[in-house]
C-alpha cells in the first residue's frame, strides 16, 4: 500500500531506520506505563487509555515507533486495525492478576493468529513484578503455552514498568531481533 508515498517519504530526510512496534495487552496491564517508561517520561499519573498513544523511542541506533492501544474489552476489536506492517509485537501481562490469566491468554492466542502478524517476533512482558503476588515469568510462559509457538521468535521478560526493572533487558532482545533480521 502507498508505494508512491514511500518514495516521497524518503525526502523527509531521516536516514535512520524506522520500525513499527505495537504494544497490546488487557486493560490495566501497564501498557501506557511501559510506553512512558521507554520514552523516559513521568509514570506516576497514568489513566486508563480510551484511544491510543504513540511514541518514538531511540534504541541501538534505531527509531522505534511504539503504538500503545487501549486494552479495555470494548476497545479490543479495534486492535486489528493497528496490526498492519508491524515489525514487532509487545504483549504486556499483569503478573499479579491471576484471575485474568486465561482471558489474557485467549487474547494473545487470537492475536497471533492474525494474518498481519504472521512471523512477527513477540516479546511478552510479565509486568508488575514489584508486587508480592506477582507470578514468576516462567509460570506465565507455561500458562500461555509459549513453547508451542514455532513460527515466530518469542521471548518472555519479567519486569516492572513502574520501577523500570527488566525493561531494558526486553529492549535489548528487541534490538537483537531486528539486527538478526537485517542480516
Amino acid at each position, binding site marked *: 500500500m502507498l508505494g508512491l*508515498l514511500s518514495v*516521497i*517519504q524518503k525526502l523527509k530526510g531521516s536516514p535512520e531506520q524506522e520500525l513499527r512496534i505495537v504494544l497490546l495487552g488487557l486493560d490495566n496491564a501497564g501498557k501506557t506505563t511501559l510506553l512512558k517508561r521507554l520514552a523516559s517520561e513521568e509514570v506516576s499519573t497514568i489513566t486508563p487509555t480510551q484511544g491510543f498513544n504513540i511514541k518514538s523511542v531511540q534504541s541501538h541506533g534505531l527509531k522505534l515507533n511504539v503504538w500503545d492501544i487501549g486494552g479495555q474489552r470494548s476497545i479490543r476489536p479495534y486492535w486489528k486495525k493497528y496490526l498492519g506492517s508491524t515489525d514487532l509485537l509487545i504483549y504486556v501481562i499483569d503478573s499479579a492478576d491471576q484471575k485474568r490469566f486465561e482471558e489474557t491468554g485467549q487474547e494473545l492466542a487470537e492475536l497471533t493468529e492474525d494474518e498481519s502478524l504472521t512471523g512477527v517476533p513477540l516479546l511478552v512482558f510479565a509486568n508488575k513484578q514489584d508486587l508480592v503476588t506477582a507470578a514468576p515469568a516462567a509460570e506465565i510462559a507455561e500458562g500461555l503455552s509459549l513453547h508451542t509457538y514455532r513460527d515466530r521468535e518469542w521471548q518472555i521478560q519479567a519486569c516492572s514498568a513502574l520501577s523500570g526493572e527488566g525493561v531494558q533487558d526486553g529492549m535489548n532482545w528487541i534490538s537483537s531481533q531486528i539486527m538478526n533480521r537485517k542480516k
Partner: protein
Amino acid sequence: MAAGEEDDVEWVVDTIAGFLRGPAWSIPILEFMEHNCEVFDDEEESKLSYTEIYQEYQALVERLLEDYLKEVGINEEKFQEAFSSPLAKTHTSQAILQTVLAAEDFRLFKKMMVQKNIEMQLQAIRIIKERNGVLPECLTEGSDVFSEIEQEEMKILREVLRKSKEEYEIEQERKRTEEARAKLKAPDVTHSCPGDSREAVKVKESTEGAEHSEESPKCPLEGSHKSTKEDPTPVCPVQKGTENLPQPSCTKGKEDTKKRSAGKGSENTVQKAGVKGPDLSETEKQQLKQREDYLKKKRDLLLATKKESKSNAPPPSSDQKEEEPPPKEEMSEEKQRLLQKRKMLAEKLKEEVINKR
C-alpha cells in the same frame, strides 16, 4: 543522452511539485481537513476515531496522486526514479510535501488536523464577534478558566476583533454614504461585492441571529464586563430578549470562576480538557455543552459559506489556502486596503496563537 535523462527527471519533479501547489490538489485536501478536523484536539492521547479519518486521508492522497500521474503519463517507475534523485530535494520544499507526507506519518497528520481545528475555531469566533460586537458569555469569561497563555491569546484576539469591527463599521458607514450618493446619481446600485465572502456571512448570520437566541436562551449575548467596556456601542439586536430571562447557571459559573482562578492551577487543565474531567459540576458540564453546540453551529455555517463561495467563485488561483477570495476589480481601493489589513491581522493572530502551542 545523460543530459536528456536529467531533463526528464527534472520535468517529472517539477510537474508533480506544480500539481501539489495547484488547486486540483489543494482544494480536495483542504476540504477534507475542514470537514474532519473537528474531533482533533491537542491531547496527547489520540482517539480511536482519528485512525478512521487518517485511513480515509491516505486513500484520498493516493487516489489524487495516482489519478494525476495517469493523466500526465508518468508511470510509477519514472516517478520513483525522479523522486529518488537529488533533484527532488532541491526542487520541492517541506511545505509543499507536508500534505503528502502526512499520509505516511500519523503524527504529522494529527498535528495538521489539530492546527486546522484551531484555525476554524478562531475564524468562527471572529465571525460571531463581527456580527454581534461582543461574544456571548459562554464564549468569554463565563465558566471558563483561562491559563496565562490563553489569556494572552484572548487579548490578541479581542484586539483583532475590535479592529475588525471598527473597520466593519467604517465600511458600513461609507457604504451608506455611497448608497445615498448613488441614489442621487443612478438608480441601479450594486449592493454587495460578490468577491467579499465576509459580507455574505454577515448578511446570512444576521438573519439567523434571532433563531439562535431562541434556541439557547441560557446563553446570553450580553458579553463580559471587559468586552462591553471595549465596545461602547454593542451591535447586538438579540440582547433585550435574553436579559429578562433567568440565568442562574451563568451567574453561578462566574462565581465559580472567581473562586477557582484564585489558585489551583491543575484544575485549569482539567477544565480545558473539558468532557473528560470527572469533577465537573452539572452546570459546568452544561455550559461546556452550550459552548460546544454554539461553536459547532458556527462551524457548520462557516463550512456552508465556504463551500458556497468556492462553488460560486471562478476557478480558484493556486494559492487557495486560507486566503480571501481574490478581490474583484470593481472593489474600491479603500476596500482592498481594508481587506489587506484584515488579512495581516489574521495572519498575525494565527502565528501568535498557533506557534505558542
